[in-house]
């Protein structure tokens, strides 16, 4: 893979009313080009990703026209549920590696927050569904929290753990958010605050769930050569990989806990020659607090049931030996699906994270989860000196 990230642009990142997703996407793409020091007209590829519930009328291929872009050599919608952002980046990286495009912008935009309305209006929508999977709605299992709760409940039970394991994730992630001006929730979260909050779906409480925002994030992917001449320190894409286990839901298998990261980890570490010990920081998809725990185990940082060790001793926290979700993640930062962990990794590897800058930030693991743990993409990024 010969590709690098040269631009990062955001728009919105607010719980207030915003323009529609397509307009936020246009603003973010423009900001990403500006960040790279390139004119918008230098973009020759677009990869659009959106939440699985949105259609072309929300955000689609005609973003090209809104940006006034002509003669693109790539224009695509990348859909892989919550993993769409890394799926888009992977497509862009392959395109620039294969010389079919030179400057590809990947963008995600979503506007789930309707000021004055509960979030369940956006994320717990009435659905009927089709086939066996649709039985979740007959059972009352609406929204992501209900489904991730099934994984969290089983994780705690199988390993004989208590809810404090989830609390550690939420509290640690908030410590990082306190250092990030763009985070949604920056007030320190005490253990008392955590346990005093209401359950959404047991064992998941309010602070085990993502902080939704209206916003867009765009990332400009280009060749290492062009990236070296851009305005920002390049961030190299060292490897990307997918893992979609299709775990059967019957005895002998564990669909609640089996994580696509185990498949991707083999490919990522195999391609780079790196292992968990050579990763300086992790940016995991953390729409719910259970997710980073399962990702840590899937990627071999800890044996099954031991991921709590990453949090218990403060290793994942600011100043720790293995910083995790250093911008506050989805939990306390902002939920823009797969773009949230990617954007934070870019900022850290540039050395531009200000108060929350990780001292040793040369390599980062970024993960995206979709359909709980059914669909997964992972990526290893390297700082400028890691040019492959």
């Amino acid at each position: 893979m010969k590709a690098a990230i040269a631009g990062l642009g955001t728009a919105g990142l607010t719980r207030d009313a915003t323009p529609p997703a397509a307009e936020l996407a246009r603003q973010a793409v423009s900001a990403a080009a500006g960040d790279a020091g390139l004119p918008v007209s230098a973009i020759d590829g677009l990869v659009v990703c959106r939440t699985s519930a949105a259609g072309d009328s929300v955000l689609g291929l005609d973003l090209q026209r809104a940006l006034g872009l002509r003669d693109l050599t790539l224009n695509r919608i990348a859909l892989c549920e919550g993993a769409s952002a890394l799926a888009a980046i992977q497509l862009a990286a392959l395109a620039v590696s294969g010389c079919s495009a030179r400057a590809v912008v990947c963008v995600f935009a979503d506007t789930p927050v309707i000021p004055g309305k509960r979030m369940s209006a956006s994320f717990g929508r009435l659905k009927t569904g089709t086939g066996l999977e649709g039985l979740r709605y007959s059972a009352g299992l609406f929204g992501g929290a209900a489904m991730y709760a099934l994984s969290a409940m089983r994780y705690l039970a199988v390993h004989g753990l208590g809810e404090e394991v989830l609390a550690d994730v939420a509290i640690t992630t908030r410590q990082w958010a306190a250092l990030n001006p763009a985070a949604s929730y920056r007030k320190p979260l005490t253990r008392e605050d955590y346990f005093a909050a209401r359950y959404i779906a047991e064992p998941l409480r309010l602070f085990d769930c993502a902080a939704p925002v209206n916003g867009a994030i765009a990332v400009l992917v280009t060749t290492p050569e062009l990236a070296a001449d851009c305005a920002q320190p390049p961030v190299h894409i060292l490897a990307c990989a997918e893992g979609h286990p299709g775990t059967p839901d019957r005895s002998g298998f564990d669909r609640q806990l089996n994580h696509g990261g185990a498949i991707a980890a083999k490919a990522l570490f195999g391609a780079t020659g790196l292992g968990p010990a050579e990763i300086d920081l992790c940016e995991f998809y953390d729409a719910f607090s259970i997710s980073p725990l399962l990702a840590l185990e899937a990627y071999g940082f800890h044996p099954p049931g031991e991921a709590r060790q990453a949090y218990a001793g403060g290793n994942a926290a600011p100043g720790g030996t293995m910083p995790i979700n250093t911008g506050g993640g989805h939990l306390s930062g902002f939920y823009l699906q797969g773009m949230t962990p990617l954007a934070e990794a870019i900022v850290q590897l540039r050395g531009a994270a200000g108060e929350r800058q990780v001292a040793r930030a040369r390599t980062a693991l970024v993960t995206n989860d979709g359909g709980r743990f059914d669909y997964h993409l992972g990526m290893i990024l390297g700082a400028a000196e890691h040019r492959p």
Partner: protein
Amino acid sequence: MTFPPIPEPDAASARFFAALDAGRIELLRCADCGSMHLAALICDACGGTQFATVPASGAGIVHSFTRLHMAHHPAFAEQLPLTAGVVELAEGPRLFAQLVGEGTLAIGAPVSAEIRDCDGRGVAVFRLVAG
């Protein structure tokens, strides 16, 4: 009476939902390898495409569960906190279902199926077996 949303059958689940609407849980046993499925057109264990229909015992265990503290559908508004989860049938396959009854709620707890008639459609709920 407000009924919960009931999925439309797809090709793989047509036999399952037809049986459920008739008040029974039926399983598909792969003719080649014997793997049990609730819905399948192709066996994910062996690639077989021939299945025999066999009745489920209705017995199972709780594979995972949650208690939901917010109702997203009027059918559940009076039942909060709503208990739902994944049930592993004694024959092996699992399905999402509401859990009811006073028995101990825990992973591995025994449950037994009750088919509710919802205006002609069947819904399987699982009752926690007391003791």
